[in-house]
């Protein structure tokens, strides 16, 4: 049974992580696409239209992969976590069903308009479709995070006589205080991912000396949006998240900061390796009193360490939790530095010639994905040993009759299948970037010509 639990956890973690590669790009791009299409609508310039078309193509690819990898997640609540579903369905069934009804229908209806509408519908209609896609994808994120927020911080529920939980107030569920910082933090991170992807493609064009006009637009847009989003990601959203963790989940807070002992004036650990045998940090490098100040706005405030809690409340993989958190924070800091520096150079008119900075922007593209994955690992590893914080333990949520052989079979299947999907997506994105925005524009024109000829006969 223990190994079935392990495989169930690995399978959900893997499929959720892999799935989230795509939605973060789609949600971020959805916002940027609304901006790009608004600009194209206003100026009517063919350059702006080609820019919007190019990123719609990447958006569509990412959307398609996001859809096919997203369905398994909704099914896995039932397949692998049946006792959890029985227990909590009366609450989280609400938000998951609402996501289907309010977000998925909206997205799937209007993606068709955007993709099949090129050359058939007016610019204005396509602009409206991209706006609706933005609303749909951000709503989808909202309902999913409302579900996750309830698991992190259960509110608005009552427990029935049979031990199952039931929703008490829908408004309470949708306005979970946890959701404010979690949603804003997550969505600004999605914008960082998309902005840096855009800046990276632009930097690639500029460095290769091709599609210069497009490259400059991509870099400019990506750097500007990325600078705003990465600052918002740190403050206030990241800061707000950390504060609420220390308020409601102090064990998670202590574990992710690597704070073994309760201290007054606790330092903020920058680097170091948690040693679980001696309960100390090897090779520590810390800013004195900074943690106390960040959490309680006071230099000598007391911060509870792991020793303040009994062991069965500790997250079960503290080193991994600690590293995830530090990788996320470290990368976030690097984003602010590189994108902030680029914005400064852009303002001074020197960015397009600063090859070293363009190189940094180009190479930065994969790192937002690592940062968001690390962030989600912090949230979810830190929630352990609970499935629903304080209410249900992860070990009590599995499907009672799905044994480890079955779970391993499907885990291996997902690993193999998603490896192929990852390669396929990379191949198609590289192909799209390689051909460039103009290639797509000419293809469209050819398509339109053939339609015109066809309707004449």
């Amino acid at each position, binding site marked *: 049974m223990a190994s079935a639990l392990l495989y169930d956890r690995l399978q959900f973690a893997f499929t959720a992580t892999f799935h989230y590669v795509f939605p973060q790009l789609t949600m971020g791009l959805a916002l940027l696409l609304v901006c790009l299409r608004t600009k194209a609508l206003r100026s009517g310039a063919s350059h702006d239209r080609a820019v919007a078309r190019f990123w719609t193509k990447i958006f569509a690819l990412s959307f398609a992969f996001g859809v096919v990898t997203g369905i398994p997640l909704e099914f896995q609540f039932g397949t692998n976590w049946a006792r959890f579903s029985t227990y909590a369905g009366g609450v989280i069934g*609400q938000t998951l069903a609402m996501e289907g009804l309010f977000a998925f229908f909206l997205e799937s209806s*209007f993606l068709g308009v955007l993709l099949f509408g090129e050359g058939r519908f007016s610019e204005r209609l396509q602009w409206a479709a991209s706006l609706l896609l933005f609303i749909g994808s951000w709503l989808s994120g909202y309902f999913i995070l409302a579900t996750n927020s309830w698991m992190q911080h259960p509110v608005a529920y009552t427990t029935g006589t049979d031990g*199952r939980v039931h*929703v008490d107030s829908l408004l309470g569920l949708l306005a979970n205080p946890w959701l404010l910082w979690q949603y804003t933090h997550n969505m600004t991170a999605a914008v960082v991912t998309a902005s840096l992807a855009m800046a990276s493609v632009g930097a690639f064009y500029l460095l290769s000396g091709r599609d210069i006009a497009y490259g400059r637009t991509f870099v400019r847009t990506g750097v500007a949006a990325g600078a705003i989003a990465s600052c918002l990601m740190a403050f206030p959203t990241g800061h707000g998240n950390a504060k609420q963790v220390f308020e409601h989940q102090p064990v998670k807070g202590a574990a992710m900061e690597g704070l073994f002992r309760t201290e007054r004036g606790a330092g903020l650990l920058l680097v170091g390796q948690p040693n679980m045998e001696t309960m100390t940090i090897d090779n520590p490098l810390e800013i004195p009193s900074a943690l106390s100040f960040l959490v309680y706005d006071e230099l000598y405030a007391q911060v509870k360490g792991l020793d303040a809690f009994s062991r069965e409340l500790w997250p079960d993989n503290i080193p991994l939790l600690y590293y995830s958190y530090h990788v996320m924070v470290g990368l976030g800091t690097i984003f602010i530095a590189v994108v902030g520096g680029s914005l400064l150079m852009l303002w001074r008119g020197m960015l397009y010639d600063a090859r070293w900075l363009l190189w940094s922007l180009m190479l930065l593209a994969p790192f937002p994905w690592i940062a968001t994955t690390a962030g989600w690992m912090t949230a979810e590893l830190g929630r352990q040993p609970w499935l629903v914080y304080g209410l249900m333990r992860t070990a009590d949520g599995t499907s009672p009759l799905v044994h480890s052989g079955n779970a391993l079979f499907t885990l291996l299947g997902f690993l193999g299948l998603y490896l192929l999907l990852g390669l396929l997506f990379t191949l198609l994105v590289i192909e799209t970037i390689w051909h460039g925005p103009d290639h797509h524009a000419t293809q469209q024109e050819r398509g339109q010509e053939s339609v015109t000829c066809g309707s004449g006969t």
Partner: protein
Amino acid sequence: METLWFVLLAFMLTVYVVLDGFDFGTGIAYLFVSRTDEERRMILAAIGPVWNGNEVWLIASGGLLFFAFPRAYAAGFSGFYLALIIVLWLFILRGLSLELRSHFNHPLWTGFWDTGFALASLLLAIVFGAALGNLIRGVPLNADGYFFTPFWTDFQPGPEPGILDWFTLLMALTTTAILTLHGANYVVMKTGGDTARRASRLARQSGWTVAALTLVALSVVPFVQPTIHNNYDAHPIGWIFPLLSVAGMGLTIWAARHGQEVASFGGSSLLIIGLLAATAWGLYPNLLTATVGASANSLTIDNAAASPHGLTIGLKWFCAGIALVALYSVSVHRLFWGKVPQRDPARDRR
């Protein structure tokens, strides 16, 4: 309130099968009715803008089941564990086949995704047919309300059945035939030329197969699951649903002979609606029927439902949500109505 959600759930699933059913049927018919790349593109263009939206009906139904009847969702999804995960893999294959085919114009690339689309559609039709068979036959629920079925045991619908036995295989075959007919009707309605001619021949052939198989399947159902009679005996008005499907069957065969493409498609839709409604009528109030002899373990709308308060809350947003869904569907269909899709010479000829 629980009954209302049972009806709404049956409604959502029926819409799903009618809509995504023609996508599956189109996929099954795909390689048989097309010869050239041009013809294949034409067929793909017919389902291209709609298949994703059709699939959402299944996801929304799953969400509604989770919300309204959490115990049935948990038991059903974990009980059919292997089959469901394989369904998920097939959905990935189907979705990517449709989305990625046009990215490179190389015969090996397009050929691979063509086969993927056809194969995934065929297997999904078979699996969904078998799933329907399992719902009717019943599953070995234990006293806690969980079960687990392997793919097969001895192929008998006894107390320890597998997902596949002779009865569910019969249902799988029947479903595949019905969806092939339904898809062929859709292709006839949406395309022209040689493709439509081949599709209409396929529809005629599958029409008689469907009639024969449906008759056999309907006649063995009472032997496999005797309780399905009860609601019909108590409320004979329910016979309207089987009659509806017979009418649909008749309509599609008649309309196909007289070249009424839309009516023929409507007939096969009616056939599906009638059969599913008849099944729901027979199963009510069970969501997951236990195998014969253990009927006390069945999951019904009463012992599997969420709290009445939760169901009442849900009804409010469901009404708002389904109105929005109707609004999107109507506006999107109006947008694509009657216009000539790109690279679709067949529609131009009409």
